[in-house]
């Protein structure tokens, strides 16, 4: 996978949870990026969240919806 696809993958809001500790774990794609890729990812993620929030009737990004889903599913 090249940096562009790694960035696209990691810029999504999906994150797995550690089954033992319950902690939200870093994206494997983030792990595979170098420092420049991670900087680019930060910008791409912010833009994606802004896009999602702007399109959502409640103004919620995918991050906010993922957090709410965890709260409501807990």
């Amino acid at each position: 996978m090249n940096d562009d696809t790694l960035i696209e993958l990691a810029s999504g809001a999906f994150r797995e949870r550690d089954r033992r500790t319950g902690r939200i774990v870093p994206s494997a794609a983030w792990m595979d990026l170098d420092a420049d890729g991670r900087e680019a990812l930060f910008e791409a993620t912010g833009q994606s969240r802004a896009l999602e929030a702007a399109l959502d009737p409640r103004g919620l990004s995918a991050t906010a919806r993922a957090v709410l889903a965890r709260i409501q599913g807990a």
Partner: protein
Amino acid sequence: MTDLDELLPAIAAGDAEAFGRWLAAAEPGLRRSLRGFATQVDTEAVLQEGLLRVWQIAPRVTPDGKGNSLLRVAHRIVRNAALDEARRMGNRMESAAEELDPEAITVAEPDPWLRELIEACFEALPPTPKKLLGMRLEASGGVHDKVLARRAKKKLNTFLQAITRAKKLLARCLEGKGVSLEAS
């Protein structure tokens, strides 16, 4: 100044919808506050973990009269979550910690005009990128892209490339309307 503490009593009482309204306004600023950690931790994972802790701690937060008490508590929680994660990964984060500025945390306001423009540009996308980006948006961070790609009968790489292309086309369309989609 918008004071999100008006939502605090409902959030503290367990009203997830009120927390959703708080998240919509608070998330962009909290995310920006993690800028200095971008190369050291997965800021998306840290932010989600921090926001879950904010929900858990909200019933114990008392407004101090200065406004946005929960937002300021959230800023500390998110920063500490980032520092913990950086240490867990064996990184030293003093410089990033110093860069965090509580005053830089601002409240995002909804923009109906921007939403209309984005919707128009989204509708104008070619069918495949539009469909795949729509799947990603609908999944709301609850489904891995591998699963979405399988549902779309695409290879993961193809799926991700189509999403990237859709976003680029969307950005170009918005630029044509004089809008740059920066992280708000």
